[in-house]
């Protein structure tokens, strides 16, 4: 089970009302390589991986939910008091018509989240290699978000999130190494 903590992982601050930036950030909220996809991918894989690597999947999945909450905070603040006209101008007119000021799990183009973004192959190496790839893709997405954002406060949070992808990628790489140690040497000539 989970218990909610009434705090953010990192102190998120937002400089200006900027719905265009909110639209871009949705890529990491409900996109293919976003935080929701990451959390669900790892949370689902943890049940059947070798015991040695359960902790990594469990704990990174949990952390990804705190990243999702950071993204939500940024999107919420960037659009909170935006007028319908401002949202239309930002390319969020269709979003507003469907969802009002609510957030939604969709990517920067408004494509709704789908479970087809994640995989589960029942093969620990195949799964961990997907996880490593997912972390590197999320890192790249944060880089391009930093490149298009001119809000230094948002960029401060995005830099933190990008660095977390480095560490998660490292832990998944280590997990592969841990499984290599399990090799049954007796069968190898």
């Amino acid at each position, binding site marked *: 089970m989970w218990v*909610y*903590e009434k*705090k953010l992982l990192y102190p998120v601050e937002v400089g200006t009302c900027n719905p265009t930036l909110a639209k871009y950030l949705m890529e990491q909220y409900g996109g293919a390589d976003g935080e929701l996809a990451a959390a669900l991918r790892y949370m689902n894989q943890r049940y059947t991986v070798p015991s040695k690597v359960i902790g990594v999947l469990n*704990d990174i999945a949990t952390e990804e939910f705190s990243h999702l909450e950071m993204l939500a905070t940024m999107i919420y603040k960037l659009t909170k008091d935006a007028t319908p006209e401002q949202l239309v101008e930002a390319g969020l007119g269709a979003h507003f018509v469907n969802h009002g000021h609510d957030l939604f799990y969709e990517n920067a183009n408004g494509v709704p989240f789908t479970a087809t973004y994640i995989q589960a192959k029942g093969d620990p190496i195949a799964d961990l290699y997907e996880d490593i790839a997912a972390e590197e893709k999320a890192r790249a997405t944060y880089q391009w978000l930093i490149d298009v954002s001119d809000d230094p406060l948002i960029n401060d949070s995005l830099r933190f999130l990008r660095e977390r992808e480095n560490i998660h990628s490292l832990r998944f790489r*280590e997990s592969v190494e841990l499984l290599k140690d399990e090799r049954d040497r007796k069968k190898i000539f």
Partner: protein
Amino acid sequence: MSAFEEEREMMLRVQQADFVVVELTLYTDTHPDDAEALGQWREAIKEAAHVRRQYENRYGPLSLASVPTEQALEIGWRWNSTPWPWQR
């Protein structure tokens, strides 16, 4: 320092202490035999609990793993009180 800034400062201390625990937990997941890291991890959890207690004594529980004080309830603190983390 305004009351708003004071709260933010104490929250930042909690976030810093908790983050060390997050990092060391992931590290010890893949390094279960690093005795020095395990020691640091235990100390980091103690420190995070200490900093959290200081925050909660003043501003109320951050989770329901902490007992709300009677004074907190008397002065109107509720779990459902605003602001929530995304509203701050």
